[in-house]
């Protein structure tokens, strides 16, 4: 992309951001919106800084990040193994693909009370719930990618006498790489979102729990501040993983 074009894109993004901030400032001052509904932006920012100054919030951030990381590791390894095994045979592949795409579309949040029932209100239920959400798109993409390797690549494998291990690891995994990476990226997004949702719906610690507490106390300032922190945290994690998992070759 040309530098001037890039400058324009970023300029417009900043402009949009500025419009939101100005609308917020305008609404709470001249507009007369109740601070119970929308607190002043300056109060919210001050609350953010104050929150970040406490040990409690860092402990909560630690818990939330830990839940996300463990949930993603479980989802990724289970998804890779399941996708790999399901793609081994035509029949299991066909059956598995449908089941996984259902799991992907199903509102798993409906089952969250059961997760609490099974694993309690601690971090285990957040990890399990996040992992289940992340598992489906990963396993689905891995199965799809491995099942749709172009015949001509497999023919090269036969002509050059690749061992079954080489056929799997070099040819199939290589050809399916872009699909697998995009599955992992979807998985990251779903894991981060569902861990926060799980914390909101029932937990004892974590950032989502703090947000839920602020909400029951009708503390609008803290509620907004915590929301901003959560957005920033998930955005940072998603960007890091997005970068790490980007495919260089298509």
């Amino acid at each position, binding site marked *: 992309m040309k530098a001037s074009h890039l400058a324009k894109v970023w300029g417009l993004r900043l402009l949009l951001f500025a419009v939101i901030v100005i609308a917020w400032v305008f609404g709470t001052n001249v507009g007369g919106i109740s601070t119970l509904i929308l607190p002043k932006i300056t109060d919210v920012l001050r609350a953010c800084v104050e929150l970040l100054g406490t040990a409690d919030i860092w402990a909560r951030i630690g818990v939330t990040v830990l839940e996300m990381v463990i949930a993603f590791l479980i989802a990724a390894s289970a998804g890779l193994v399941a996708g790999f095994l399901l793609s081994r045979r035509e029949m299991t592949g066909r059956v598995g693909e449908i089941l996984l795409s259902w799991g992907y579309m199903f509102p798993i949040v409906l089952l969250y009370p059961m997760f609490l029932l099974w694993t309690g209100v601690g971090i285990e239920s957040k990890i399990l719930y996040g992992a289940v959400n992340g598992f489906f798109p990963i396993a689905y993409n891995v199965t799809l990618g491995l099942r749709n390797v172009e015949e*001509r*690549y497999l*023919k*090269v*494998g*036969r*002509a*050059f*006498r*690749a*061992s079954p291990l*080489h056929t799997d690891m*070099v*040819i199939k995994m*290589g*050809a399916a*790489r872009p699909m697998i990476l995009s599955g992992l990226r979807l998985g990251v997004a779903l894991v981060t979102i569902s861990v926060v949702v799980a914390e909101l719906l029932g937990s004892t610690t974590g950032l989502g729990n703090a947000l839920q507490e602020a909400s029951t106390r009708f503390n609008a300032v803290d509620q907004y501040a915590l929301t901003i922190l959560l957005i920033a945290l998930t955005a940072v994690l998603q960007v890091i993983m997005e970068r790490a998992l980007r495919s260089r*070759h*298509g």
Partner: protein
Amino acid sequence: MSQLVVEDLSVEYTSMSGDRFTACTDINLTIESGEFVTIIGPSGCGKSTLLHCLGGLLQPSGGSVKLGESVVDSPDPHKASFVFQDYSLFPWKSVVDNVGMGLKFAGGSKKEVAAQAREKLEFVGLTRFADRYPRELSGGMQQRVSLARALALEPQILLMDEPFGALDEQTRRALGEEMSQILRAAGQTVVLITHSLDEAIFWADRIVVMSASPGRIAEVIEVKHPQPRDLSFMATEEFQQLRVHLFEKVEFNQLQRGPKVSA
């Protein structure tokens, strides 16, 4: 080095609807070591099927393919190595890794594989592009990479399935001349399928002309003009006569059979 002997080879397929279909039949052919043989014929004459059998990628329904004393019943890239029409390079691997792929599959160590792959890249004149990816290369260059991949295993026979089919006329001629010189210099036994009359004549020690439905060998023509040849060969009487002959055999027959030509 040994002869490649094809005896009474036939290949039958069963179609989805259960019909038996004969791709080629009664194929008898002996290819000497160091010989350059081209195969030409109308679409559907079983040229590719025959080539796949020569390299063990396909099992004949009848007859046999033997290289020296041993029956060819599965691919062995040290004996017969393929160059495919669509190059079939792995886009997720660098050029040098693609060239070394056969060596890697054969169990070579990383160091050996890299060294030999670079040597073969130099042989086809692509040293500069070793660390690029296939999509950064032109079609002609990709085909040279594919040739280097096949040559890396130092095969007794090189089997080329319309290697220039996907290239434009000019690239095709330039690359073809260059490749044929490289292969000649190496004394490589080559079997090459082509659709082009000029290519079939220009490189061949012998031309195998096939006819369709069912695919069988219609004629084998020896091209006596001395090797190595340059483009001036194409202006000779000998070349022109062969070309007219082949045209009648291949293209004219196809026109007569062709469903699109109405009375």
